[in-house]
């Protein structure tokens, strides 16, 4: 096999951060090369250098054997390097096809666009990918998973020989992940070299040929994926061994009910959902993407209006119409889409952590007690291992996983009685995941009630005391957590579609 990329001694500094310290990486034609490391290890930065978005401060870069300097994204595309960014980089007001061909629109000499042409081309790409996406749909109207598919289609449309995927499956469900893997395998057989970044350990084993591990911006090592135990890779990543055992499930049958939801409905996405949540309990919500789990959370939190149903908090029915009502009732919600709903990206880490609890840190005259804030922020930065040069760093400059940790810190600080976490570990590395599990367990032990929505079955199984499974807006069953339940049982409920003959007209 021929070597297509060789990066060595790569250095990159940002103000206050030494992001890459002599990083190295190489890539062969026709291989899937996984790049792994903790949040903030420098994976995305290294790949942004390869795709021309950042200029390196030092080191050399060879493409197809020749030393090159990549001046910009255009130059990288010219070299056949395509990248799918960790944070989706799409234009929501444009159509799918317009997004795919932005900057390369087929046009006549006068800059007149050929819309029919790009729609046809996009259609062909999606047909080859075997995913149904309408090229004429506005990207705004698509789910995150579909938007991800658009990004992939965009990268494929360059006929890239080198394809970088930065956490492509973070927002995909199992079926969609399978589709992606099929696409990756086909590209691979055509000789395309693929860099694959992911925090999902099981995927690495299944899809990649080699694994390169980075830690703190430096190169740790490269191993063959097939004969290296996952534990070894994890140890390379975090520099220590991790406790992977599940927590014990307490008997909560006598604990008071913290939240009771009955007959909750909203359109087709939430249909007659009822459940109870006891104090000290962690209730997992499993289901396929689009099963209505997020919608249930948003309705409980008052972010969306409900058509019907009751929400009873600590035995009292509450009229929750806005998120403010929900917070007043002691309910917190950590959104799955942190960029749009969870973070003020231009504000520093400290400000974001304090965002929902500012009143607690201000006096009668609305003066903010900055010293106390700084102390609290330092606490969370330490306990969640948030990688940031200081608590005054703007959140948008943190790595993806570290942004997620800031959102978690924010809600932990808010100290709600009922906390809903929607995909809390999306894009978070194994070490921090274990830390977050521990962090979710400790408030539960302190008598708080917690709902965790997660698309990763092992996570739901490991974390939850009970597991609620949803399918097509309905709650199809509640299973016990821990070893008593298997992934198959959950999947059976998650795919239990509504086939009752009476409902056939729907």
């Amino acid at each position, binding site marked *: 096999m021929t070597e297509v990329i060789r990066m060595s001694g790569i250095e990159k500094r940002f103000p206050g951060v030494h992001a890459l310290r002599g990083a190295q990486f190489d890539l062969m034609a026709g291989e899937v090369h996984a790049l792994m490391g903790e949040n903030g290890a420098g994976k995305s930065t290294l790949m942004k250098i390869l795709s021309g978005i950042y200029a390196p401060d030092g080191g050399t870069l060879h493409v197809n054997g020749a030393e090159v300097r990549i001046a910009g994204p255009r130059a990288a595309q010219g070299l056949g390097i395509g990248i799918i960014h960790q944070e989706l980089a799409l234009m929501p*007001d444009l159509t799918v096809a317009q997004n795919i061909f*932005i900057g390369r*629109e087929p046009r006549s000499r006068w800059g007149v666009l050929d819309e029919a042409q790009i729609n046809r081309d996009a259609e062909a790409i999606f047909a080859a990918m075997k995913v149904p996406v309408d090229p004429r749909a506005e990207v705004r109207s698509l789910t995150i998973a579909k938007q991800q598919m658009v990004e992939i289609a965009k990268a494929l449309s360059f006929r890239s020989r080198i394809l970088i995927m930065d956490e492509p499956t973070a927002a995909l469900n199992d079926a969609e992940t399978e589709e992606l893997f099929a696409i990756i395998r086909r590209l691979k057989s055509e000789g395309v070299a693929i860099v694959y970044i992911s925090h999902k350990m099981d995927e690495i084993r299944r899809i990649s040929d080699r694994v390169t591990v980075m830690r703190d911006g430096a190169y740790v090592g490269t191993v063959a994926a097939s004969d290296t135990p996952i534990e070894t890779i994890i140890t390379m990543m975090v520099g220590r061994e991790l406790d992977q055992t599940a927590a014990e499930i307490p008997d909560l049958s006598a604990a008071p009910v913290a939240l009771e939801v009955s007959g909750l409905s909203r359109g087709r996405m939430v249909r007659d959902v009822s459940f109870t949540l006891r104090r000290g309990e962690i209730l997992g919500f499993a289901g396929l993407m689009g099963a209505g789990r997020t919608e249930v959370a948003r309705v409980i939190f008052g972010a969306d209006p409900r058509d019907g149903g009751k929400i009873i908090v600590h035995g009292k029915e509450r009229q929750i119409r806005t998120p403010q009502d929900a917070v007043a009732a002691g309910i917190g919600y950590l959104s799955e889409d942190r960029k749009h709903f969870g973070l003020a990206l231009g504000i520093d880490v400290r400000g974001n952590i304090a965002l929902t609890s500012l009143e607690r840190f201000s006096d009668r005259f609305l003066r903010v007690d900055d010293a106390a804030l700084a102390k609290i922020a330092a606490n969370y930065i330490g306990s969640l291992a948030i990688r940031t040069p200081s608590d005054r760093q703007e959140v948008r400059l943190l790595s993806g996983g570290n942004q997620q940790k800031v959102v978690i810190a924010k809600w932990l600080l808010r100290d709600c009685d009922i906390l809903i976490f929607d995909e809390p570990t999306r894009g978070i590395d194994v070490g921090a995941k274990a830390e977050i599990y521990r962090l979710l367990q400790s408030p539960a032990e302190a008598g708080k009630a917690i709902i965790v929505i997660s698309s990763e079955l092992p996570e739901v199984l490991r974390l939850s005391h009970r597991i609620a499974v949803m399918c097509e807006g309905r709650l199809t069953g509640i299973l016990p957590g821990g070893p008593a339940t298997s992934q198959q049982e959950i999947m059976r409920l998650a795919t239990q579609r509504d086939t009752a003959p009476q409902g056939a007209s729907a």
Partner: protein
Amino acid sequence: MTATPIATAKPRLLASGAQQKLLAFASLIVLLLFFSLASPNFLQTANILAILQATSVNGVLAIAATLVIITGGIDLSVGTLMTFTAVIAGVVLTFWGLAMPVGILAAIAAGAACGFISGSLIARMKIPPFIATLGMMLILKGLSLVISGTKPIYFNDTPSFPQLSTGSLIGALVPALPVPNGVMILFILALIISWVLNRTTLGRYCFALGSNEEAVRLSGVNADGWKVAIYALAGGICGIAGLLIASRLNSAQPALGQGYELDAIAAVVIGGTSLAGGRGSILGTIIGALIMSVLLNGLRILSVAQEWQTVVTGVIIIAAVYADMLRRRRAG
């Protein structure tokens, strides 16, 4: 090869942009009906032509403002830029005594050059659009006064100049349709820019920049360069507005201009273009500009005091945007 079936988006009666235009259009019709019932003088041909003539300058400025607003920016200098280009035309035609086409070209070129400067300040020096164009607004206002010696410049040496706006080419051909040239210029320009927005690369980048500038940059597009080009185009259009107003007044009035930018932005907003960028249309803007002039004309015919006309305009702007918000929330 068998094509996989492509799931189409949920069928909607109208795209959301079209709905907004419909809303604005319906409001326009309601206003027209109301005023024609309220006063017999309203629906006279002369009055309709007066409304259209009054729309032409604000309409052209609003087209320029639409381009910039779709990119997610704002241009506060359109009004004084219009005046500046009128003064330039005065200098070329009256002070230097050159031929009319030279004056026309000079005005448009001056507008484009100023737009180029604003665009460069915003895209290359990263000055926020509000600040950069606020500065330009004052600079151009001052320069207009300096160049003209604070006195109006009359176009007495160029007798055909007023014809540019007030003459009627169409009327000469079809006497039944005495539509002034200024109005024709507005509509032709609207058609051209609408086409540019929807069919050309420049238009595509307007929407893309307003939608997610970072994504445009990551796609390897010269985002800054296109932004400068868009502001320059908007500036050139302001030059056309400058010619129209100078021709109508047969003079370049250096003290005029400030305040026009707000009318233009109002028309854009009433027409459903989002100040957040990423969506909008020229058709909407034209309807918005028409709504404003119909309103002012109608209120004047009903002898509503000038002060109250201003109050009503303010209320209409807020109501238009609120109606749009309501509609969007319902659409989900």
